[in-house]
């Protein structure tokens, strides 16, 4: 009788790549719910529409590359890419913006390099930066949060997405913009005078960030990634902010808490820089990777001209990841640690 010949190990753990990706998708929920509460259903609609576009694109590309498309769709990776991109896009973006973004992410960010696992850059951030550079106006139009203006309903959102008309509801500068542009007010006064500032940071933004923090902590608990990169990034932002706080003067870059809970900080820390494909591989490498991203985010936020800095910081460090890997190989068992 002939038995099946397979090499060891003969068992396999419970985790699969598809499950990892689904877990990540699930973990975006608290943040997405907070965004929907404060900014209306725009983001949710972005995610749904972007997801359909992404699945279609992935199917076509895989068919063109003569692979079984259904096998590759099952890893859910393209949905993660599109979802992360759509969370980063302004709510109530027109449909073509989303199509261009998702296509850039999936095609330019991933498939031109050989598909999942081969991309040197975070695909979602590639898509984001393509849009930010090409369509700066659409990309910097953020809706006003609940409490400062009326939140749009579903029909408004659908109109904004498909009717090809620029959504013209009340938009206003984000707290990050205000902090950067502030030249005359003490931080204290800024918080008091500008309605966009809430309890710790921006109205709405603080809760969005807390939502992504919660999802990220859950992923940490589920051991989907390690603490090294996110914690290093948050620590670096905190240190930079403390150094640049300047006693809350009109030159202040804002407090650590403000930076932690503003813009895409928590989303970036737990959902973007933890993309394993394009980050450094060793734990030590990930600490350096995360910390440098944190420093860059702070510098670009305080001195740059863009709405936020996470995408640029991540892409720049994606370039550096192989170099970081080169110098952070962990000490192997039986090798003198001083050798490394």
């Amino acid at each position, binding site marked *: 009788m002939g038995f099946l010949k397979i090499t060891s190990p003969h068992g396999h753990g419970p985790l699969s790549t598809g499950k990892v990706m689904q877990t990540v998708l699930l973990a975006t929920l608290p943040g997405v719910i907070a965004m929907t509460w404060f900014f209306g259903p725009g983001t949710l609609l972005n995610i749904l529409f972007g997801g359909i576009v992404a699945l279609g694109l992935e199917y076509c590309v895989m068919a063109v590359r003569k692979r079984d498309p259904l096998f590759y769709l099952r890893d859910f990776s393209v949905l993660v890419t599109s979802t992360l991109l759509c969370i980063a896009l302004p709510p109530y973006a027109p449909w073509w913006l989303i199509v261009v973004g998702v296509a850039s992410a999936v095609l330019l960010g991933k498939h031109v390099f050989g598909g999942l696992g081969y991309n040197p850059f975070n695909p979602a951030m590639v898509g984001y930066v393509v849009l930010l550079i090409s369509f700066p106006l659409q990309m910097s139009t953020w809706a006003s949060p609940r409490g400062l203006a009326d939140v749009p309903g579903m029909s408004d959102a659908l109109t904004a997405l498909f009717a090809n008309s620029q959504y013209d509801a009340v938009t206003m500068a984000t707290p990050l913009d205000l902090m950067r542009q502030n030249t005359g007010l003490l931080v204290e006064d800024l918080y008091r005078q500008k309605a966009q500032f809430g309890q710790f940071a921006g109205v709405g933004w603080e809760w969005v960030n807390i939502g992504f923090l919660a999802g990220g902590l859950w992923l940490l608990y589920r051991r989907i990634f390690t603490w090294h990169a996110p914690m290093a990034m948050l620590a670096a932002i905190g240190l930079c902010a403390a150094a640049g706080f300047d006693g809350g003067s009109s030159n202040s870059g804002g407090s650590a808490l403000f930076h932690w809970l503003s813009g895409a900080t928590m989303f970036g820390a737990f959902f973007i820089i933890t993309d394993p494909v394009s980050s450094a591989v060793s734990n030590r490498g990930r600490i350096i990777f995360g910390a440098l991203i944190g420093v860059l985010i702070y510098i670009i936020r305080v001195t740059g001209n863009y709405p936020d800095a996470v995408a640029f910081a991540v892409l720049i460090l994606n370039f550096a990841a192989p170099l970081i890997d080169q110098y952070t190989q962990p000490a192997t*068992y039986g090798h003198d640690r001083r050798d490394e």
Partner: protein
Amino acid sequence: MRTVYAIHGGIHPPEEKHLSHPGKVLDAGLPSELILPLSQHIGAPAEPIVNVGDKVKAGQLLAESQGAVSAAVHAPTSGTVTAIGMRPVPHPSGLENTCICLVPDGADEWITTRGVEDYRAESPQTLIQHIRDAGISGLGGAGFPTATKLLARDRCAIDTLIINGTECEPYITADDTLMQVAAEQIVAGAEIIAHILGASIILYGVEDNKPDALKAMQAAVAAQGDVGDREVMSFPTKYPSGGEKQLIEILTGKQVPSGGLPADVGIVCQNPGTAVAVRDAIIDGKPLTERLVTLTGRALGKPCNYRVRLGTPISHLLALSAFTPGSKQRLIHGGPMMGFALETGAVPVIKTTNCVLAPTHEELPAPPPAQACIRCGLCAEACPASLLPQQLYWYAKAKDQEQLEKHNLFDCIECGACSWVCPSTIPLVQYYRAAKSTIVEARQDKQRAERSQARFEARQERVEREAREREAKRAARKLAAQKKAESADAEDPVQAAIARAKARKESVVKSEDVS
């Protein structure tokens, strides 16, 4: 109480130890034929000293060990040698190898054996010779000849003997069972080995998922009274804590240097089964002819531990344990993490057979096709050698030997933890095995190339030297001729011509004389 040290990585696969009822031993009885491979160990195969048709008794030497790293083979029962030839053997390659076939006569008649009366009075060399004569090789898995391992005492000062009762592979309970039923013999064997090594410390390492074995070992060690520094250490269950290097770190905090042996840090590890075999060889004078084998898996109706004569066909054991093969049936020699798949049940139990695993397809399904590596790093977290398996995978695919060596591919112990956790079900270990053999081949090729280059250069040099010598000779002859000519020039040419003619005449006369 010593400190237990933590090791990097490791995984917690389902243990499945209860299946085979650890602590209970059945006798496998006599099969109709025993098949004894000449290579049941690492090293040179043994050399047969019997012929087809010979009647042999149990315990009789059938094949002698050859060279420094080898182990002898003995008859597990009395009977007739019916063949010496190629048979399928348990090996990952699935190839055949030379075996001695023995048909038992049923009498199970032993040769007279005599042990050593007081091993403490014997020299280590004598005791090591006894162990070599008993054909003992490691019973834990690798099968390194025990006598050769004990010779480490001549090279390094050994202070610690570790008895490795970890048995971290899922399913296997042979060592667990042995520790429960033969703790005294294990301890007696360990004392003999420590005496040979000159080791003052004996540490028994047992994972905490074997409370009965732990109790039995503690009782047996305590029963000895105060004989020196002895400790039974329990530590958290984690695969692969039973890897030799891992266990050394857990129990002592020391790491074996890369490319080195445990002896380099003053440690020797032995399996409990090996300790019992050493005890039997020294105290009773009995060679190694049987071992405990776990038969387990859900394709077996009656999984259990069996006391099995070496050479017993695995099919005999499968029949005893009510094997009902399903579709896509797998038969694994060893555990699910590091064992290899057998193609046939006709292969025999050998000295390294600790387990035969017959899982159902639902129990251990064949891996689905591999997906893309997303560098999630779960493999790096699981790697007990602190390697970066995901990097090794990319370099192995790129055939980048320089980076593979820089990332310490050869420190990989092939435990399979990385493959187990890989969410994309990439057969990582398989890539490392292939890369290792490619690099070893390349090294050998390089050596061969260097040798032939050296030969070529030596030849080139010789040819040039000979040419130089010929040239020098020619030059010397030319010079001599010139000199002669010059000296001749100095004389009167007429006189010279007369002299030459004279000389010619004389030589002619001389040659006539001779004829």
